């Protein structure tokens, strides 16, 4: 195809001009749109000195098989220089089932660590001082329950909750939109999220009770603009619910955190992070009347794009991941996960995860990109792309406002349908060869075998045995009492967190606690949109 005929676009389909010069940003009020880093609306980053002052947290998402095995992996990663932990739970845990539930058959420990009770959580953090290491937990529908377990383990270690720092993902809206790990219907789920935000504002001032996530929206096949718009609009929905509860904006907004994808289109991703900070800062100040700058500063974790990893020629994934990670760093991320080369096949093995961590360390210590904040600021192309991304995301946000907010939009299937259409469009481009994936539809070669992490059924047996022993050992009268109290709290309007803590302390299991809540809230089944 001749260059004149070929359409150049970002990976999300935004057209790209042949050249960007001063005219691309002519007429822009630079003092308003592009003040120095650390100044509203934080286009160039939330800190004046960015990584000169503090590097991002290197936080590899990790968890597999039993809590015993995952604990060993954590101790290894910390010994390798990782600076925070990030817990991956298995599917039964994510769905609120114990390891011995019939639906857990074949799934225990496969996609993350199996945690059915406080006992498992105690084992998971054995030898890890929760007062010093920050922990992020990827858990959503039963997030309040797992957080209660975490708080009790901290208590056992003698750590004051006031000092406790970390992040609970706890973003249920993106589950309905994209990842589909939901248990209860949207409205009771939003109530549980609001309970955690309220509890956090009172008792854990340094803990992020929610990480509002675009990552999974992007992985489900959305464009960069959809990822940005749906995530920020989700954030506004949580704010609306917390305000409705009677909280003051500056009492909880500083602890709202975000999580974005780092996909393959280098400049589009950097523009996305910059636009995210601008939109959020303005929404906090103008839509919600926040006064504290901490409420206006969007802090985010980034993870390189799992969906970009290929099964073919897996070593190419190291290169993809490095470029994606660099985009996140140039976009001002506060913490970062780099994917391992083997993740199109399985959960990462130890060699692969070490290489992924080294990738971040090379970026941080050798590349020089950390020496000055927002080093690409002022690039005609990047500034134009930032403005366009911001405008396109705002259009979506206004559409969702007109639909009555995100819960209403989700119930109408709006974001789900938009994402499905975008993902099909993307796949058709790959299929037609219009979009190149190296090693998949061009530059193919024969396979290179790689070593893989295997998780067999011994983990499931071990977990089931532990549960049986626990159920025989604990005070089952006390378990019943705390579960009944939880159910009564759920039926009413009081905050469920204190009741969850009581149930967890009595060693009620995750499945038992979620069953009590299922009985009150009911469960959710989506209408499948194809």
């Amino acid at each position, binding site marked *: 195809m001749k260059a004149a005929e070929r359409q150049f676009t970002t990976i999300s389909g935004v057209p790209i001009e042949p050249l960007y010069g001063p005219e691309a940003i002519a007429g822009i009020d630079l003092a308003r749109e592009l003040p120095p880093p650390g100044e509203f609306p934080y286009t160039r980053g939330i800190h004046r000195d960015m990584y000169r002052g503090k590097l991002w947290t290197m936080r590899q998402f990790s968890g597999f098989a039993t809590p015993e095995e995952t604990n060993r992996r954590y101790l290894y990663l910390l010994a390798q220089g990782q600076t925070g932990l990030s817990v991956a739970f298995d599917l039964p845990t994510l769905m609120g089932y114990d390891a011995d539930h019939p639906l857990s058959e074949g*799934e225990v420990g496969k996609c993350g660590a199996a945690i059915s009770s406080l006992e498992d959580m105690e084992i998971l953090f054995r030898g890890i001082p929760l007062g010093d290491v920050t922990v992020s937990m990827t858990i959503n529908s039963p997030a309040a329950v797992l957080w209660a377990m975490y708080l009790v383990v901290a208590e056992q270690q003698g750590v004051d909750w006031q000092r406790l720092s970390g992040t609970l993902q706890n973003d249920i809206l993106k589950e309905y939109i994209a990842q*589909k790990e*939901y248990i209860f219907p949207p409205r009771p789920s939003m109530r549980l999220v609001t309970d955690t935000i309220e509890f956090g504002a009172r008792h854990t001032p340094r803990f992020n009770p929610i990480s509002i996530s675009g990552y999974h929206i992007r992985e489900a096949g959305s464009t960069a603009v959809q990822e940005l718009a749906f995530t920020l609009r989700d954030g506004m929905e949580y704010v609306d619910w917390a305000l409705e509860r009677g909280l003051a904006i500056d009492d909880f907004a500083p602890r709202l955190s975000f999580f974005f994808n780092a996909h393959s289109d280098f400049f589009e991703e950097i523009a996305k992070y910059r636009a995210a900070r601008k939109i959020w800062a303005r929404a906090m100040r103008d839509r919600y009347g926040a006064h504290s700058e901490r409420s206006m500063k969007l802090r985010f974790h980034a993870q390189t794009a799992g969906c970009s990893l290929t099964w073919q020629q897996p070593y190419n994934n190291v290169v993809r991941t490095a470029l994606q990670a660099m985009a996140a760093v140039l976009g001002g991320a506060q913490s970062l996960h780099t994917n391992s080369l083997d993740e199109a096949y399985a959960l990462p093995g130890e060699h692969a995860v070490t290489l992924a961590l080294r990738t971040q360390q090379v970026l941080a210590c050798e590349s020089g990109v950390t020496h000055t904040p927002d080093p690409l600021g002022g690039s005609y192309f990047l500034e134009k792309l930032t403005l366009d991304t911001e405008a396109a995301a705002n259009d979506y946000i206004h559409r969702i406002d007109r639909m009555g907010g995100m819960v209403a939009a989700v119930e109408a299937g709006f974001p789900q349908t938009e994402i499905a259409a975008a*993902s099909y469009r993307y796949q058709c481009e790959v299929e037609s060869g219009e979009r190149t994936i190296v090693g998949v539809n061009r530059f193919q070669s024969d396979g290179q075998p790689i070593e893989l992490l295997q998780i067999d059924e011994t983990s499931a047996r071990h977990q089931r045995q532990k549960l049986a022993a626990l159920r025989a050992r604990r005070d089952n009268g006390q378990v019943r009492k705390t579960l009944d109290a939880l159910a009564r709290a759920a039926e009413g309007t009081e905050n469920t967190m204190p009741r969850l803590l009581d149930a967890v302390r009595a060693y009620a299991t995750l499945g038992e606690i979620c069953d009590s809540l299922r009985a009150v809230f009911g469960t959710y089944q989506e209408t499948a949109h194809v």
Partner: protein
Amino acid sequence: MPHPIRVLVAKPGLDGHDRGAKVIARALRDAGMEVIYTGLRQSPEMIVNAALQEDVQVIGLSILSGAHNAIVPRVLELLREKDMADVRVIVGGIVPDQDAEALKRQGVAAVFQPGASLDAVVSFIRQSVGEQSTG
């Protein structure tokens, strides 16, 4: 005019990652097939019952969680019990080579791993069902 091929696209297990299942469902529909998508978290029993009621020639199972060795053999067993062994079962998702070979020996018609083209899936189904109706 021949009847269109009927396919049940199903998502068993606890996993909710449905991007692949939805893309496949649309691609098969665009290729002229009649596609029924079950939605999420279907047990093997629910899948086989849906296949019976919808009178499909092909069941496509999308599994990304690593639970294929527990789920797929159960679907095959139920199909045999219900005298539906002529229904072709294809599997798509993250299935290591050695597991893919084992599943094929147990009766799975094909396993499509990450990076497989939509065209390969469509062609395989056409050929497989075509052979069946002429053979």
